[in-house]
């Protein structure tokens, strides 16, 4: 009996192995839309589109915290929040995992907002509502950490990008890149 079980298993395992790999490759291939195995839970676990740097970043994202006086409406301060993080990441090489995670979160949140910005419809922004909230919440962390004066102050977030000079202009010392603003939140109180 036991022998038969082993015999069956030794043929069943390679069959399952072949099915698994057909499904795995099918799900991984660019442009594929499904797998031969109609089990969503299985496909959910193995589906992954490998594509390291498939869209190489072409610019440096910027996240500005602009603070103004509620009484005079004059801008009192402006802080850029992503670049210091990138500098800290570089300063702590190779033990920069904490900065790396933080950079990853902020970069991807701002990148998603930049991506939907050209299509400025409400539906597009609804898709990145969570990312906007993450950035706003991060502002509160920074404000707390840096002891920013919040009395009679309100703030807005500005998401921008500074493009890298094009490849063809790499040796042109006179080439200047200009920052592009993609998204601005309305001014809001810090207590919100």
């Amino acid at each position, binding site marked *: 009996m036991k022998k038969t079980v082993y015999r069956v298993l030794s043929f069943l395992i390679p069959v399952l192995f072949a099915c698994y790999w057909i499904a795995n490759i099918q799900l991984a291939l660019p442009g594929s839309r499904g797998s031969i195995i109609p089990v969503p839970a299985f496909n959910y676990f193995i589906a992954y589109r490998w*594509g390291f740097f498939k869209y190489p970043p072409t610019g440096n994202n910027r996240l500005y915290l602009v603070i103004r006086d509620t009484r005079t409406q004059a801008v009192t301060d402006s802080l850029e929040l992503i670049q210091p993080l990138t500098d800290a990441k570089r300063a702590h090489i*190779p033990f920069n995992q904490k900065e790396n*995670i933080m950079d990853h979160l902020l970069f991807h949140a701002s990148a998603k907002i930049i991506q939907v910005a050209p299509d400025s419809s409400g539906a597009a922004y609804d898709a990145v509502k969570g990312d906007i909230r993450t950035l706003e919440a*991060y502002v509160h962390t920074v404000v707390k950490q840096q002891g920013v004066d919040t009395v009679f102050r309100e703030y807005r977030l500005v998401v921008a990008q500074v493009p890298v000079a094009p490849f063809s202009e790499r040796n042109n010392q006179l080439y200047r890149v200009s920052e592009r603003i993609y998204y601005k939140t309305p001014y809001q109180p810090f207590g919100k």
Partner: protein
Amino acid sequence: MKRLTWISSCISRLSEQNYKSAYLSFLRVGISIYVLKELWNNASGAAWLYSADSFLYRNDERLLAAFPGMMGILRAHYIELLIVCGVLALLNVAGIGKRITAALLFVSIVLVHKLNMQFVDGGGIMLRFILMYLIFADSYSNFVLIPSKPVSEDRRKLNNLLSNLAAFSIMLQLCVAYECSGIMKLQNELWRNGEAVYYALLVERFRGTPFNTLLVHIGWLMLSVNYGVLLFEIAFPFFIWISKCRKPLLIAGIVLHLSLYIFLMIYGFQVVFLLIYGLFLPNETWCKLIKKLPVLQRRPSKFT
């Protein structure tokens, strides 16, 4: 009929012995240590990821969204979850609990990843695949505290079959990752024009060394690295199985991953990928290495 005989002979060959026994042991230990390192990193961010005043807004991941209660419990006990993972990784290093430990480690890492989907990269995904395949692999012929008990001939054969297929799966997964990535890159204009590496080196968040800004001025270097990466990723899965091409491809891969490590500050990813490379070398090479190094001396085991 001929085909069936061929399949049958393949199965019996795969059942004869565990062809990757030595390196699978090494991989189990290496991956478990890597998991420990990753857990340590995750723990350092726990305060601002999971504390009450965390700035992170979370869209619940699909798996955990299906169990809302579980999501809350996992977030509230994040450090405990990391500790459980750590203990399992330590047990896995010593080969205690064997496949049960390997399976539990896989499940716990999946949970950690599902909680941290926003910053799990390709290396993390590959780690998950390796851990899954290691559940089926017999990686307990070396570096174990408790040697395996003798088993019946049938069970030994089945064990070898599973182990060889698992080892092959890890290698195949690497090939799929490279090939799909290569094809994906080909669909992007910057990669096709040979400009992608230039941008990657110059973007601030990946600028790992001061040399990046100097290297990007060498146009021919940027172009050759760009097309070299494409060629490597597309060719690797096909030529790695040819013994004559193996060494140059592995060396090219090591250079590629070390460059990513140094110049682009992408760390974990490279370690996971390079750990797989050892499987492409013959088992004898690793056996010899283990014999040469007294500290790596094997313990007696039934399966070898």
